[in-house]
Structures are given as C-alpha cells and as structure tokens.
C-alpha cells in the first residue's frame, strides 16, 4: 500500500473541542492523506457553519465537507427566519440529522463548538453513526487514541482562555508526534461573546517531545560548529 492515488481523501486527523469559562476552543491538525501520501499538509479542518458556530471535521474529507455545506445552508435560512443567531444546539442537531439518516453511506466524525447567549460556550460530539453527545470537552480522529490518558489527567473544569488554548495546542502537538495520519500545523479557533479568533501554530513553534530533536538547517551546520563528536562509526 504505497502511493495509491485513488484511495479516498481521508483526514486521519486529530480534532479537539474544549469549553472554558466564557466560550470554547476548537483545535485540529492540518494533514489530509490519500493512502500514505500527504495530499494537503496545511488543510483547514475547522470549518465555519455560522458566525458563532464552527465544526471540526474528521474521517472522509468529501463526506464531512458536503455535510458541512448542507448544514451551513440550512442554518443560514434558519438564522434569517429566526431573526437572530442560531443556537449551537440547533447547529449540532442539524449535523446529527444528516449523519444519522445517511449512516450507511457517510464516514465522518465531527465536533461542533460555538457560543450563544442562552447557554454560553458548548461542545457537541457527533461520531460515526450519528449519535449526539454534549460534553465539556471532546476529542476525535485517529490521533485522539493517544490523548485519552492525557486528558484524563490534564482536563480541569473552569479553565481560563489561555490555559484552555495551551492545553489544546499541547494535545494536538502530542498526537501529531505519534499518529502518522496527523501532522502539519495546529489550528485553533476561539469562540466567545466577543467573537471569533483564529490562530495558527506552525510545526517549528511547537514544543519538542520525547526523542524529538532541535531542528537545523543542514547537517553541514552541525559538522561545522562542533568538530570532534558528531560522526561515529
């Protein structure tokens, strides 16, 4: 299974959604693969549904894109009819409706996060099959396997915006270190009463984990700087 260019585009992925005191933080990696080939190393898996609700997508890129497009369209109409911003709960349930009724054909697991004036920041998980679960935090995608233990230990209720964002970036970065299907940059989206902030943490600005090394421009620089020891036989 080498360079199968006809393999479906799937977002191996690590996606995370976390509530904090005041809103939500959504985070994701940026790798989209076609079999073992990285088709896009800087994709944006956190997609906008409305001004105040975003969705983290994993699984089949095509399926999650088309479902998001439908939900965005329905929510747009709903917002016009309602006369005010849609709630996060409605957005999440629309995703669920499509996921559930097409469960035999779709392959996507998503995390919906947003802020509305009634319930504040909320995170909803919609995994394979179309279950909907409201959670204080959610993890998904292939990289999430490596994060269950991490979150069991590190998650706390009532974190500040900065604490929560640091947690999300650290978690995605840890998953990228071990999941071959996740990689690239860490994107975060912060949603609260004041609006939406998008951030971008590139590969070389993320912390180094176990057995990872400080990057250099070239081996030649290392050889030039410290003569006696770098090469061995």
């Amino acid at each position, binding site marked *: 299974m*080498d*360079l199968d260019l006809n393999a479906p585009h799937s977002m*191996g992925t690590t996606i995370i959604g976390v509530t904090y005191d005041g809103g939500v933080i959504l985070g994701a990696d940026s*790798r*989209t*693969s076609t079999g*073992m*080939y*990285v088709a*896009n*190393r*800087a*994709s*944006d*898996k956190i*997609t*906008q549904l409305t001004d105040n609700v975003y969705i983290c997508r994993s699984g089949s*890129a095509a399926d999650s*894109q088309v479902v*998001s*497009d439908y939900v*965005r369209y329905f929510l747009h109409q709903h917002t016009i009819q309602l006369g005010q911003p849609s709630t996060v709960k409605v957005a999440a349930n629309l995703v669920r409706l499509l996921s559930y009724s097409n469960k035999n054909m779709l392959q996507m697991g998503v995390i919906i996060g947003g802020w509305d004036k009634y319930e504040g920041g909320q995170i909803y998980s919609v995994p394979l099959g179309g279950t909907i679960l409201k959670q204080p935090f959610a993890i998904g995608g*292939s990289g999430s396997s490596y994060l269950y233990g991490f979150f069991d230990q590190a998650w706390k209720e009532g974190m500040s915006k900065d604490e929560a964002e640091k947690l999300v970036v650290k978690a995605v970065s840890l998953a990228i*270190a*071990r*999941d*071959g*299907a996740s*990689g*690239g*940059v860490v994107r975060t989206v912060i949603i609260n009463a004041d609006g939406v902030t*998008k951030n*971008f943490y*590139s*590969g*070389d600005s993320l912390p180094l984990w*176990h*057995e*990872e*090394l*400080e*990057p*250099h*421009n*070239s*081996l*030649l620089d*290392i050889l030039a700087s410290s003569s006696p*020891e*770098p*090469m*061995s*036989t």
Partner: protein
Amino acid sequence: MEALAMKDSAISQNGTERTLYPYVTGTSVIGMKYKDGIIMAADTGGSYGSTLRYKSLERIKSIGKHSLLGASGEISDFQELLRYLDELVLYDNMWDDGNSLGPKEVHNYLTRVMYNRRNKFNPLWNSLVLGGVKNGQKYLGMVSMIGTHFEDNHVATGFGNHLARPILRAEWREDLSFEEAVKLMEKCLLVLLYRDRSAINKFQIAKITEEGVTISQPYALKTHWGFSAFQNPSKGAEGSW
C-alpha cells in the same frame, strides 16, 4: 487483531508458516554516489501501522570494511539479514587471506537470499540499498523483497522512489562534493518529511569512502510553514480545505 480467521492464518496445510504482512516498518532510504564515494540517508523511525511507535531506530549499518546497508520495510527481517551478513563477514575474516568482501559481493549475496526466500513464498519484507567503495571503485545497488536487483548512480526505496528520484534525476552529478551531496540529500529528505505519512523528523546521513565509514548522529531538519496561503486557506471558500 489477535483472533485471525483460519483463512488468514499463516500456518498452511503443510504446517509451515509464511510472512503475510509487515508489523514494524521503516520508510524510505535514499542513496547516491558522489565524488569520493557513496552517501546514504534514512530517518530513524519505526512505524507500527499508522502509529509512529519507535523513533530511534538505526536503519543504516556498515557491513565489513567496504559497504553500507540501508533497509526499509519490516525491521525484524532487517535484523535477521544483519545476522546473516555478520556470519558471512566472520567467515570471510577467518580465511585470513588478506581479501575482504566488497560491496558487489555483498549485494550479490543479498540478492540470492531475497530471491530464494521469495521463491518459498516467505519473503524478507525489505527493500535494501547497498553502497560501498573498494579499490577506488564506487558501487551502489538495490534489492527488493522479491529479489529484483540493479545498480545505479542514485537509488531510493518506498516513497523515495516517487518523491526523491525525480529530484535526483534532475540535480545529481558525478562530481558532487560532500557538501553538495548532503544538501541534495536534505532536499529529498524534506520532501519526504512533508509528504510521507510514516516519515519522522530525525535523520541519519551515512557516508562511505575509501578511507572508511561514518554514520552521523541523528539530527532534525527545519521545516517551512510560513507561506501566506497556509494562514487562512478557507478564506473566500468556506468549507473547503
């Protein structure tokens, strides 16, 4: 994973076993000739399916006095090969006749081993790069898990075939200096790091010349993510990638 159906079992009618699929795998190895000898590079990762399980594997080893062997594919099979080669080199030394196995001989031996195993439907699941210098003659060859073998000025295994070889075809020259060869190698390694899911950012570059073998300590390369297009790719096309 453990409860394989009978039809998937490797123990066939006659009670013998055969390799069905690899478990711990190494990804691409790249090799090229340069002015003074051969230069070879590989990352130090061992994947376990899609998990990047082992990050400090050495996939390039020296064989005898005149050769370097780099391997991709199943690591346990590579380790078995190293055992075979160890014995081969030992016997060679025991003759104590001043002769020593050169890269051409080692390559031929590996080809025979790989092809024979393939004929028994129990392959060593590796792609091997064998390079060396003896009496001023540079040698670089490859052997696959089915016994296909050839020599060339530059070779690569796995994803390297698709991503590194085009670069080498365009930019390799007979008279590359060590510095130029390293730079060219790093250009290939970076593309592999971006585009191969099983690549990790920890490499070893090995060189062999008439003087001997040097294998570098593992090191990492800087990656580039600062393109403006990467900042906000969905701008103007919400929901795209």
